[in-house]
C-alpha cells in the first residue's frame, strides 16, 4: 500500500517542515523570538497575530497545527481566545500552548480551565519550548498517519471484501432457487478480519437436484482470500464445461483437487464439502475433503445426525480420491453445513467439538424458520466463547 506510513515515520521524529504554528502575542519582540526559535527547529510555516481577535481570524485562514498563545493581551486576551476557540468543534483538539509567567499559578489554572492543552513558562527557555512543541506536533503527525493508513487500508480491503462477498450467491439467486427447488436457505458468512478463507456456493443440476459446496482455506486474511478466488474460478470453469448430468460429488472434488494442487504453495490447503440434494431419492449425497461433519435431521427428530467427513484436504496430493457418502434428507428434512470455526470455539480448556455443536443444534430444532434457527445457533455459539476464525454456516431445509 503506497502512501502508508513506514516504520520510520512512526518511530522517528516527525518531519516538522510541514507543521504550521500560529504565534499569538502582543509583544513584537516576543513574537519574533518565538518565530526564530521555531525556525531553528525546522518549523517553516509560522504565522503571527498580535491579539486574540487577530488570532481567531488567522485560525480560519492559516489552519495551524499548534497555537502558541500569550495570556495578557489587549482586546481579546489569551483566556478569551482559548475559550472561543474550544467552543468551535473544528478546533476542539487543536493543541494550544499558553505562555505563562512562572509566578502566576492562578493564570496557569485559569488557562487550563479555558481549554489550554499545556503551557510554556516565561521567560522562554528554548529547549523546553521546542521539546513541548515537538511533543504536540508529533502526536498530531502520528494521528494523521494513523488515520491515513487506516483509511487507505480499510478502503482497499473494503473493495476486496465486496469482491469476496460477490463470490457467494446473491439474494435474488437464492430466492429463485428457493422457489424452483422448494427449499429454504439461510446463510452466514463472517470473516475474522476484513477478508476470509471461506466461501460457499450452489449449482443447479438436472432433475431438480441442487449441488451445494462449502470451502474453508487454511489461514485467514488476504492470503487465504486470494485462494478462495482461485478455487472459485476453478469451480466456475468446471461448472461451465460440465453442467452436471450424472453429477458425482466425489469426482468433482477430485477434479478440483487436481487443478488446485499445482497452484497452492506448500503448506496451504483447503477443506471442502460438495453435496447433492436429491429430492427424488430423499438423500443428501456428498463427498468431503476433510470438511466438518454435515448434519441432517428430519421432521420430529430430537437430534441431528452427523455424517462421516473423513477425506484428504485439497491441495495436498494431486491423485487424491474421494468417496461418496449419503445421509437421509426426506421432505421437511434439513441440512446444516459449517466451517470449522464452529467446532473450534474455545470452551473451558478445550474446544466445543462436534458433539458440543450437535447439542447446540439439538436445542434449537423446534425453530421452524431457517433464518431464526441459524441466528439462534450462532448466538449460542458466540455465547460459548470467542470465535477467532472465519465462520460460515449454511442451513438448507426441504419443504415438507
Amino acid at each position: 500500500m503506497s502512501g502508508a506510513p513506514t516504520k520510520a515515520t512512526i518511530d522517528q521524529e516527525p518531519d516538522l517542515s510541514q507543521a504550521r504554528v500560529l504565534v499569538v502575542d502582543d509583544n513584537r519582540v516576543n513574537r519574533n523570538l518565538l518565530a526564530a526559535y521555531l525556525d531553528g527547529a525546522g518549523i517553516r510555516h509560522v504565522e503571527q497575530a498580535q491579539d486574540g481577535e487577530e488570532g481567531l481570524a488567522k485560525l480560519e485562514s492559516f489552519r495551524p497545527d499548534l497555537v502558541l498563545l500569550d495570556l495578557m493581551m489587549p482586546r481579546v486576551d489569551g483566556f478569551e481566545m482559548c475559550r472561543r476557540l474550544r467552543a468551535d468543534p473544528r478546533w476542539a483538539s487543536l493543541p494550544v500552548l499558553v505562555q505563562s509567567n512562572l509566578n502566576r499559578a492562578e493564570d496557569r489554572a485559569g488557562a487550563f480551565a479555558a481549554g489550554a492543552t499545556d503551557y510554556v513558562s516565561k521567560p522562554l527557555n528554548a529547549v523546553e519550548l521546542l521539546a513541548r512543541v515537538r511533543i504536540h506536533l508529533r502526536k498530531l503527525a502520528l494521528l494523521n498517519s494513523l488515520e491515513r493508513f487506516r483509511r487507505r487500508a480499510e478502503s482497499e480491503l473494503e473493495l476486496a471484501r465486496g469482491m469476496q462477498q460477490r463470490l457467494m450467491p446473491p439474494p435474488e439467486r437464492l430466492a429463485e432457487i428457493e422457489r424452483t427447488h422448494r427449499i429454504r436457505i439461510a446463510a452466514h458468512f463472517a470473516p475474522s478480519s476484513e477478508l476470509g478463507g471461506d466461501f460457499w456456493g450452489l449449482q443447479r443440476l438436472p432433475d431438480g437436484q441442487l449441488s451445494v459446496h462449502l470451502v474453508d482455506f487454511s489461514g485467514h486474511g488476504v492470503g487465504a482470500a486470494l485462494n478462495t478466488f482461485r478455487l472459485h474460478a476453478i469451480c466456475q470453469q468446471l461448472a461451465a464445461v460440465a453442467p452436471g448430468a450424472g453429477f458425482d460429488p466425489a469426482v468433482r472434488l477430485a477434479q478440483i483437487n487436481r487443478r488446485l494442487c499445482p497452484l497452492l504453495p506448500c503448506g496451504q490447503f483447503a477443506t471442502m464439502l460438495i453435496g447433492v440434494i436429491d429430492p427424488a431419492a430423499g438423500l443428501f449425497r456428498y463427498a468431503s475433503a476433510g470438511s466438518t461433519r454435515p448434519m441432517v435431521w428430519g421432521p420430529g427428530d430430537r437430534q441431528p445426525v452427523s455424517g462421516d467427513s473423513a477425506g484428504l484436504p485439497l491441495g495436498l496430493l494431486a491423485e487424491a480420491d474421494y468417496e461418496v457418502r449419503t445421509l437421509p434428507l426426506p421432505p421437511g428434512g434439513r441440512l446444516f453445513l459449517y466451517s470449522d470455526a464452529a467446532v473450534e470455539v474455545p470452551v473451558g480448556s478445550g474446544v466445543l467439538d462436534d458433539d458440543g455443536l450437535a447439542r447446540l443444534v439439538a436445542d434449537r430444532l423446534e425453530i421452524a424458520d431457517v433464518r431464526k434457527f441459524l441466528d439462534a445457533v450462532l448466538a449460542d455459539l458466540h455465547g460459548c466463547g470467542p470465535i477467532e476464525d472465519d465462520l460460515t454456516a449454511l442451513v438448507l431445509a426441504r419443504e415438507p
Partner: protein
Amino acid sequence: MRIAETIADCPILIVDGTALGRTQIGTILAAAGFRALSFAGTGEEALAMVAAQPFDLAIVDIRMPDPDGLEICRRIRGDRATGDLPVLVQTTPQSSEERNRAFAAGATDLIAKPVDPAELLARVRIQLESRMLIRDLSLYRDRVEGELEIARSMFDQLLPSDTMRQALRQDTGVAVLAHRVASDNFGGDLWGLIRLAGRRFGIFLLNIPGSGVTAAVNAFRLHTVIQEFGQMLGDDPEAFLSVLNDCAGEFFDGDRQATILYGVVDAQEGYFRYVTAGAANPLVVTPDGRSEMGEAGGVPLGISANSRYESARLALPPGAVLALSSATVLTTLDAGGTGVGLGMMVARAVAEGGGEDGFARVARSLGLALGRDPGDDHTLLWIVREPCE
C-alpha cells in the same frame, strides 16, 4: 479533569524519594482515573521495577538519592528495552540550567515542583495518548502488513520457477530470461509459461492496472483460468484470448481491464505466433543486428464481450532474441512507443554477444531509465532461441 478510558490502565511508575511526594502525585493521578500506579522510593528500586515490568510512563523527581533522577533518565534511555519509555522529570522551575540538564539526560518533558495538578495531568495525558496511538497504529499496521506480506509472496510464487525454465530450455532449446521489478504494492505484471507438445510453449505477459489487494485478486483469478485453459487452448492464441476475455468480463467490475500478450514459441519451425489485448509490441532482434517490431493492438481484456483477437507472426531464426515488455518500458524508453529505444538497446546487447550478460546490461539500463518512478512495476522477458541446432 477525567481522562479517557483508553489510557486509564496504562501502568505508571512514580519515583520520588519522599513519601509525601509520592502520595501527592499518586493522589492526583488516582483521582483523575488512573488505575495502574506503582511507586519507587529510590533510584535503584525504580530501575529494578522498570527492568522487571513494562510501564507506559515514568515520573521521576530530579532530586533522588542513589542514583539521582538524571542518572535514572540516562539509564532508562540507554537500555534498548526501555529506550522509548516516556519520562517526565520533576524539576524546580526556577533553575533554567537544571531543566536543560534534564532534557540533555533524556527527559521527555518536565513538570514543576511543587506539583501543579492541571499541569501534571496535561503532561501525563499527552504522553499516554501518544503512546496508545503508536501502539494502536503499530498493531493494525503489523497485522495488515503481515497479511499483505503473505499475499505478496504468494504473488511471487505465481511466476515460473528456475527449475521450470531450465526444463524448458532443455526440451526446446529456448532460454527465457526475466527481469521484473515489482512495486511493493503488488498487482501489476505477471508472466508465465505453458508447456505445449513438441518444441513449442506458450508465454504470456499480463498487466493488471491499479494496485493493492483488488488488483492482486484479479491477477490470481486470471492466472487460475490461464492455467485452467492453457493445456486445452494454448496452441490456439486467438481462442485462448477470447476465453480469457470472457472470464475477465465475469471477474471485473465496471471499468476494470487488463492487458495481455500471449504467444506460442515454436522452436522447431522458428516462429512466434501471438495475440495482444492492449499489450506492448513484441520485438525480435536477429543475430545480424536487425530488429523487427511486431504489431500490437486488440481491446484490453474485460472491456467488451465481443472482442475478437487476430494473431500475428514473427520469424524467430536461430540465435534471435524475442523481447517482451510491459507498456511502461516502451513508453519510458521513447515517447512515441515505437520501440526504437528498446530495439536499439537489445540490438546492441545482441551485437555484443547477447547471452545472460547482454540481458543483464539491458535490465540495468532499464532500471536506470525507469528509476525515476520506482512505484511503477515493469517486466522485460528475453526469449533466446539457441543458435546451435
